C-alpha cells in the first residue's frame, strides 16, 4: 500500500523535478523584497506603493515559469496537468495560517510587545515545515535547505535590534509598524529567497545535466 501511496505522491513532486518551482519562489521572494525595499524607502503615495508593479511582476513570473516548463521540462520528461483541487487545500491552509499569525502579531503590537523574535522563529518553523513537506520529501539533500531555513530564522531572531532597525532607516513604515520587525522581515525574506534560489539552481543544473529530450518518433 505504501508503494501505491508513493506513486500517488509522485506527480506532486514532479512539479519541482527541474527546480523551476523553487527558482520561481526564490525569484518571487527577491522581487518582492526589492519591491518592499522600494516601498519602504519611497514616499507613501509613490508609484512603488501602488498595486501595479506587484501585478506586473506576478504576471511576468507566472508566464516566465510556464515558458520554461514548455520549452525545457515538457519536451524532456513530459507534461502533467494538475487537478484544480490539488491547489485548493494548500491555499486554504496557507491563508488560514497567515491570517491567524498576522492577527496574533497585530494584537501583540497593539499591546506594545516586541514580537520580532517570536515572529522570526514561528515564521521560520512554518516555512521549514512547508518546505520539508512540499520539496524535501522528494529529494533528501533538500533537508539541508529546510534546516537552513530554520537556521536563518534563528540568526535573524537574535540579531541586535539596532542592526534590524538600521535596515528601515527613517522610512514611513516606522510610523505604522515596529521598525525592528520590518527590518527582520526584510532580512529573513532575503535569506529565505537566497536559499530557494540556490537550491532551485542546483536542481535545475542537475536536471539539465541528467535529462535530454528523446528522439521524436511515433508513440
Amino acid at each position: 500500500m505504501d508503494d501505491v501511496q508513493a506513486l500517488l505522491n509522485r506527480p506532486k513532486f514532479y512539479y519541482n523535478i527541474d527546480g523551476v518551482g523553487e527558482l520561481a519562489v526564490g525569484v518571487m521572494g527577491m522581487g518582492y523584497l526589492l519591491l518592499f525595499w522600494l516601498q519602504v524607502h519611497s514616499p507613501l503615495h509613490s508609484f512603488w506603493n501602488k498595486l501595479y508593479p506587484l501585478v506586473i511582476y506576478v504576471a511576468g513570473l507566472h508566464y516566465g515559469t510556464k515558458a520554461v516548463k514548455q520549452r525545457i521540462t515538457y519536451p524532456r520528461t513530459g507534461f502533467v496537468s494538475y487537478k484544480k483541487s490539488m491547489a485548493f487545500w494548500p491555499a486554504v491552509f496557507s491563508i488560514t495560517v497567515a491570517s491567524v499569525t498576522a492577527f496574533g502579531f497585530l494584537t501583540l503590537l497593539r499591546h506594545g510587545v516586541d514580537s520580532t523574535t517570536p515572529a522570526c522563529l514561528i515564521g521560520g518553523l512554518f516555512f521549514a515545515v512547508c518546505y520539508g513537506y512540499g520539496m524535501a520529501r522528494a529529494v533528501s539533500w533538500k533537508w539541508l535547505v529546510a534546516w537552513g531555513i530554520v537556521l536563518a530564522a534563528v540568526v535573524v531572531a537574535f540579531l541586535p535590534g539596532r542592526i534590524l532597525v538600521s535596515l528601515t532607516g527613517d522610512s514611513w513604515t516606522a510610523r505604522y509598524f515596529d521598525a525592528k520587525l520590518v527590518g527582520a522581515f526584510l532580512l529573513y525574506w532575503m535569506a529565505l529567497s537566497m536559499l530557494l534560489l540556490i537550491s532551485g539552481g542546483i536542481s535545475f543544473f542537475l536536471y539539465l545535466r541528467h535529462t535530454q529530450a528523446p528522439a521524436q518518433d511515433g508513440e
Partner: protein
Amino acid sequence: MNSQIQAIADLDRVIHEPGRLMIVALLFAVDQADFLYLQHETGMNKGTLSSHISRLEKAEYVTVVKTYRGKVPQTLLSLTQAGRTSFEQYRKKLKKAL
C-alpha cells in the same frame, strides 16, 4: 472462503498488474499527463507502455487523445470516471486483503 482471501480474489485484474497499477496510480493524482511523462516515471519502454495503455483503454479506464505540442506529436492520457472509481475500489479491497 475466508473474507481476506475473497478480497484478494475480487481484486480488479486489469489494475492489479504492476505496470498498469503504476499507470493508473500516476494518472489518478493528475488531471492529465502525456505519454512521455508516464514513460519517464514508470521506466517502461514505448512498446510495453503502449500495450498497457491499450488494455486500460479497452477496459474504458483511460482516455487517449492524440494532439500536437507545436509541431511535435503528443499523446495525452487521463483517467475516466470508471477508471477512478475502479482504482478507489481496488485500493479499498487491497487494504482489506492486507
